[in-house]
């Protein structure tokens, strides 16, 4: 009986072992074909993050992420189906195959690269900063021991707690978190500088400011399933990402959606812009 159990145990272990080994080693090439066969590209985008991806009054999803997703679908000659994801479920959605591609304001972090296939180059950058009532906060040190509102699933909540000693109160969505700041339930709202700049520019946040510098800037990557990052799908998306920089798509999107021009995007465009003058000769 004991030996039977041991045998069953070792078979199970071997199966688990080989499963993970396969997942990590072998490059798979399912997605690209699957999308073409299906005729529909399912892309995970954020649903309530203006101007990256949000619901327009007519109910359709719009924004920079949707436009980027559309350019991929157009290139492949398929329909686009945007799927709304959240910060805490997006990587799981991609892993489970519920979406083919993720364009969801996701910072490129080493631990995330072990879970999903993050595509280089990044298409945007941002970093954590604070929004607070005018005159309340003057440096990052001011949040020590105080309640700071945040959004669940954002990695710099931990930085605000560990490095700056804040007591982060994280909500499920941006709206709830910012509403709590407005109601005075916390001293600041910790989030992406790009988003906070857009909020303040929108005019809905009279009397609020962005009082501190961004701690660091993190690239946002598009992601494909981990086992396909070195396959056709990953290579194709890498090409798309270069193209967005090279042909000025990202600069056009900044203008279209009224986002403050990012020096990083301008720099990338300049360094990658291709010279097509030889074609005319």
């Amino acid at each position: 009986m004991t030996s039977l159990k041991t045998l069953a145990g070792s078979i199970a272990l071997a199966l688990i072992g080989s499963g993970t080994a396969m997942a990590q080693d072998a490059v798979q090439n399912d997605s690209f074909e699957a999308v073409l066969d299906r005729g529909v590209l399912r892309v995970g985008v954020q649903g309530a993050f203006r101007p990256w991806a949000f619901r327009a009054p007519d109910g359709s999803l719009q924004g920079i992420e949707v436009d980027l997703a559309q350019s991929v679908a157009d290139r492949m000659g398929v329909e686009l189906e945007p799927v709304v994801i959240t910060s805490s479920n997006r990587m799981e959605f991609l892993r489970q195959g519920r979406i083919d591609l993720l364009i969801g304001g996701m910072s490129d972090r080493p631990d995330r690269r072990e879970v999903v296939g993050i595509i280089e180059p990044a298409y945007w950058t941002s970093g954590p900063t604070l929004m607070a009532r005018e005159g309340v906060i003057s440096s990052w040190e001011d949040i020590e021991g105080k309640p700071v509102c945040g959004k669940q699933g954002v990695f710099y909540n931990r930085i605000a707690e560990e490095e700056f000693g804040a007591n982060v109160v994280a909500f499920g969505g941006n709206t709830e978190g910012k509403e709590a700041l407005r109601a005075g339930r916390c001293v600041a709202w910790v989030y992406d500088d790009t988003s906070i700049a857009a909020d303040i520019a929108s005019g809905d946040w009279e009397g609020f400011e962005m009082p501190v510098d961004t701690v660091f800037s993190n690239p946002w990557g598009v992601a494909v399933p981990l086992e396909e990052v070195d396959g056709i799908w990953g290579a194709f998306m890498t090409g798309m990402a270069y193209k967005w920089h090279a042909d000025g798509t990202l600069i056009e999107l900044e203008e279209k959606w009224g986002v403050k021009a990012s020096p990083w995007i301008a720099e990338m465009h300049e360094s990658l812009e291709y010279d097509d003058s030889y074609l005319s000769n």
Partner: protein
Amino acid sequence: MLDLIAPFFERLYETTGLNFSPFYDQYDWNRFVEGMWISLKLIACIIAVSLVIGVLGAAAQSSKNRPLRWLVAIYIESFRNTPPIVQLLFFYFALGAITPQVDMGGWYEPVIGSFGWSVIALGIFGGSYNVEIFRSGIEAVPETTVEAAESLGFSGLKTFIYVTLPLAFRICLPALTNNIISLAKTSSLAYVIAVPEITYTLNGIWSDNVNVPEMMILLFLYYIVLVAIIARAMAMLERRLALPGYGQ
């Protein structure tokens, strides 16, 4: 505690990729323990509030005062018929905005925080069921028993406290157990108003470490064990309170 188990879980992560970070990362461990502690406190407070409301509501329901009975009926209709998550958001964001706050310079320390609001909201929610559960128990107490108590000179209130309620409590205990278990599980909804209970903290951990399936398993196990303990305790209470020949 962590020193003992950390090497095992670190090895487990390295060899199998199963990342149970709370069992080797001090920061996640603190969050996990704190989350469990707050979750237990929350559940205890919610159940206590719901029981008090249940008893008072059931007493008011059998009162001769018609407006009071109407008030209880309106209360039950409004809180049994709305989802608990809606009630939480309503209490925290709508009522919370008009309750007194202490100015702390840039932010306000509310007199009632998110923990307090979830105890109130979910306590009232659970209480609306408990009123009906206790009423079913009270109505099951034979009229003759009440008359017997009255013949001994008990007033209406005394009959309720010393005769009807103890008997009703025994009768409705199985239904009460169901509601208490359901409340214990509903407490996890408090994460929508950022009460740092177990669902909230594990959500934070899986967002940081991308170990969603592992933390989901942990969360699942936590509630299974917790509810098993509550169910066992209630079953023991049922046995202790059993009256031979009564309701058996």
